[in-house]
């Protein structure tokens, strides 16, 4: 089951479920009955589907259907939150009463009548998944499996996964702003197991976007399969690198996991509002080399991190975080924006109606610098080249971060030599920023299906960067 893009007038999708503007006004009024500075309702109807090919058979499928409303009351920096999966008026009003308990006899806000606002469209979809039948999906999986086996005779097993989903959300705020949005998503994933000379290894690759069937162009399908097979074959040859501190060259594209962990999280304004980020109080200070400019951009069409509107109903944008090495902005939700006296950056996001919005990244990008990829590699006498990653983590206050390298190379005398794998690389955010001394001119937004976790909430994100040299990071190898 897929949810098509609503065709009726914006703001009317949930009316068929009995959610009228007048009911919304009543819920808001109930939520603010004890006072409060602000309040919003977040309605969500979502569905997702996945099918999997395993053992040569498309024999597993699942669907998920979710419907509910979250209500948030804000008083200063305080939040009262409740949600309901039952959209009857009595259940919604009860949720509002629970959320209202955060406020205590403050001045009651006057609730304005909801008025629909239009939103831009950064999710251009030609063929929505609601119009793609099961046979077409099965054919896609079969095609990928066949291509993977044909790619190399060491391929012994192929598992293929296709997922699509869509949500309709509606946000109604006490100030009368009402927005409705449709959020599609899709992901293709292949895992290959290879055997050679008694060794077994596996490799995987995935691509993800806010797109329809057309996202899987012939070119992308070939890349999806080829990368998965090549990554598995690569693992057969790769070894653990030596342990210790080394110069690290980060390949263009997925290496932006470093940006995400080392810098991005520390610039989320809830941490800075509480003064517990290592970047707190560093606005307008030089925190990186002058070649380093970092943005967080919700407007990259079709990207997994693209957002037409954030989950508080604020407009999204391209936010310049670091400009020529100078820290320019944090990522704000409404609460932090009010705290700092600035406009929200459209970064208030939540996993679903069961969660409160908090400042989050969308698509975090480092812009091009002056160096070529080859210049950067040639500059390293002995170091590590990181090409593919699986996960990362950061300590916000200490600034220590880590990312796990699935695939890379040793760099010896300016050349890529021995393939390496399965190593954790660790560093400190501000320290690493100061050590980013070469920035390439080959920026690439990674097409992988990254999901960012924070406070128990996962949200889809994108990331990209050019080739970058960090003069020293700790590599968790052997010997």
């Amino acid at each position, binding site marked *: 089951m897929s949810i098509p893009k609503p065709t009726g007038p914006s703001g009317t999708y949930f009316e068929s479920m009995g959610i009228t503007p007048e009911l919304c006004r009543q819920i808001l009024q109930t939520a603010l009955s004890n006072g409060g500075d602000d309040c919003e309702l977040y309605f969500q109807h979502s569905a997702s589907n996945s099918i999997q090919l395993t053992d040569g058979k498309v024999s597993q499928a699942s669907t998920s259907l979710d419907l509910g409303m979250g209500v948030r009351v804000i008083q200063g920096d305080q939040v009262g939150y*409740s949600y309901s999966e039952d959209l009857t008026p009595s259940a919604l009003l009860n949720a509002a009463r629970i959320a209202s308990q955060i406020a205590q006899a403050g001045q009651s806000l006057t609730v304005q009548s909801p008025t629909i606002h239009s939103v831009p469209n950064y999710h251009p979809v030609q063929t929505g998944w609601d119009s793609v039948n099961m046979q077409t999906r099965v054919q896609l999986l079969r095609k990928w499996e066949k291509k993977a086996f044909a790619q190399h005779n060491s391929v012994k097993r192929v598992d293929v996964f296709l997922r699509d989903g869509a949500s309709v959300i509606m946000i109604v705020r006490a100030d009368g702003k009402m927005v409705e949005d449709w959020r599609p998503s899709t992901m293709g994933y292949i895992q290959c197991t290879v055997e050679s000379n008694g060794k077994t290894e596996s490799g995987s690759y995935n691509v993800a976007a806010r797109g329809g069937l057309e996202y899987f162009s012939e070119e992308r399908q070939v890349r999806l399969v080829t990368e998965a097979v090549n990554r598995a074959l690569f693992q057969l040859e790769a070894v653990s690198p030596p342990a210790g501190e080394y110069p690290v060259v980060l390949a263009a594209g997925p290496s932006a996991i470093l940006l995400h962990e080392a810098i991005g999280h520390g610039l989320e304004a809830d941490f800075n509002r509480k003064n*517990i980020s290592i970047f707190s109080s560093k606005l307008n200070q030089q925190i990186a080399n002058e070649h380093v400019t970092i943005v967080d951009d919700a407007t990259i069409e079709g990207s997994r991190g693209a957002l037409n509107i954030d989950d508080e109903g604020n407009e999204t944008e391209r936010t310049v975080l670091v400009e020529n090495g100078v820290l320019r902005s944090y990522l704000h939700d409404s609460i932090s924006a009010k705290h700092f006296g600035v406009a929200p950056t459209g970064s208030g996001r939540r996993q679903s109606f069961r969660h409160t919005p908090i400042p989050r990244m969308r698509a975090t990008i480092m812009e091009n610098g002056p160096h070529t990829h080859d210049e950067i590699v040639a500059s390293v006498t002995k170091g590590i080249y990181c090409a593919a990653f699986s996960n990362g983590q950061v300590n916000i206050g200490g600034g220590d971060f880590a990312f796990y390298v699935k695939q890379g190379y040793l760099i010896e005398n300016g050349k890529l030599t021995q393939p390496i794998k399965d190593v954790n690389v660790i560093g400190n955010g501000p320290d690493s920023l100061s050590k980013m001394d070469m920035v390439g001119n080959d920026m690439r937004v990674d097409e992988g299906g990254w999901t960012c976790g924070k406070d128990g909430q996962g949200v889809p994100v994108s990331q990209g960067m050019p080739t970058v040299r960090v003069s020293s990071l700790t590599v968790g190898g052997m010997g």
Partner: protein
Amino acid sequence: MNNLEQTALEIQELALELGAEETAVSISHSISTELTQREGILEKTQQSNSLGVGIELLVDGKFSGHSASDVRLESLKPFLQRAIDATRFLEPDPHRVLPGLQEMGCANGNTEANDDSWETQTPESRRALLNNVEASSQKASSHLDVRSITHHVWDSKVQSHVCASNGYSQGWQRTSFGMGGEITLVDNDRLPEAYDYRSARHLSDLPTVDELSAELVKRGESRINSSGISSGKMPILLRNFAARKIIGTFLSPLQGTAIYEKRSCMLDKVGQQVAATNLTIVDNPLIPRASGSRPYTGDGFETKEQTIVENGVLNMHLLNLYNARRLNRPPTMAGASNICVAPSELSPMDLIRDLPQCIVIEGFLGGNANPITGDFSYGITGRYFEHGEFVQGVSEMNISGNILELLHSFENTANDVWIFSQYRTPSMLFNNVQCSGV
């Protein structure tokens, strides 16, 4: 018959009416409350009352799984109809069948998973506990330059029921209580942080607020002036609350899917020595009041205690019914319950007192493991000791190696079993582990 069972049976009946041959319906209802407080101000309250259903369908020998939060039959009917129609386009999987009713069951013993005192919790009692946690942490940290301490309390009650078209029908309920905090300290230009969260089935099993605060502050203090030490091979002591990472790394390649797909370093290891002879790992779902205790498995089998590793020898792969059938072997367990490592009589300090050097690992930062090779690489935080004397806090370091080699280098456990998670492990000492720092 309770309401959940009634609803589950109605959904099952609907699925069968619409064309499913067999179904398993699991339904759960949870009520949870969470409060967060910082600097004396209640930052966040969240309450939820949530219902969800999972439905497994077998249609013409073909399998699919579905979930929904709207359990009204008028909503579920079109959803199920579409799901059943779509399932027909799949290929059959002969291993996806329900077990026979006579094979299914439910443990008789009372795991005491439900604390009746949950019913008496009030907004005032929760707030009082939160205030106590905050007062205690402020007192415990008064000698430090504290930037922030955030405090949490939470509780929940979950009722679940599962029924299958072969007549199986079982349900149970459990409560959970928790409290914890995150501390951020000032250390020159850095703001090192630490956390401690505890949860238990019964409110009275939580530690005192002073015990929680003392540990939280101690963990925070150890982050001050922390840095990497010289790379090399040395002993590591995994603190009891941190040991689950390594035990989890070991259990991952034992899972049935990894075994069936031959993506496991444990493929041919049953009956072999995979760890030092003094290491025994048991899964015990019947420990009263323990976090992971449960009366039946995800496959609907009665739970029972099972030894995964006995004196270093691997006894079993972890096979749920589906993977067992694919492998033509008997099932062992569908998911772990309480993973237990036996303690010794020695304190953690007893274990490291005579060691020339040792890193006591208190947390992990990133990292991952390759289940096919068993190779792992994890970032670590903790404290460095020489001859039992604290030398410095440790950060920006990694440990790397192979899980089988690591388990063979296991030396001993301490006497401090961690009871606040389903990994009931004491602190564990390993020898000769590759640590990379400066």
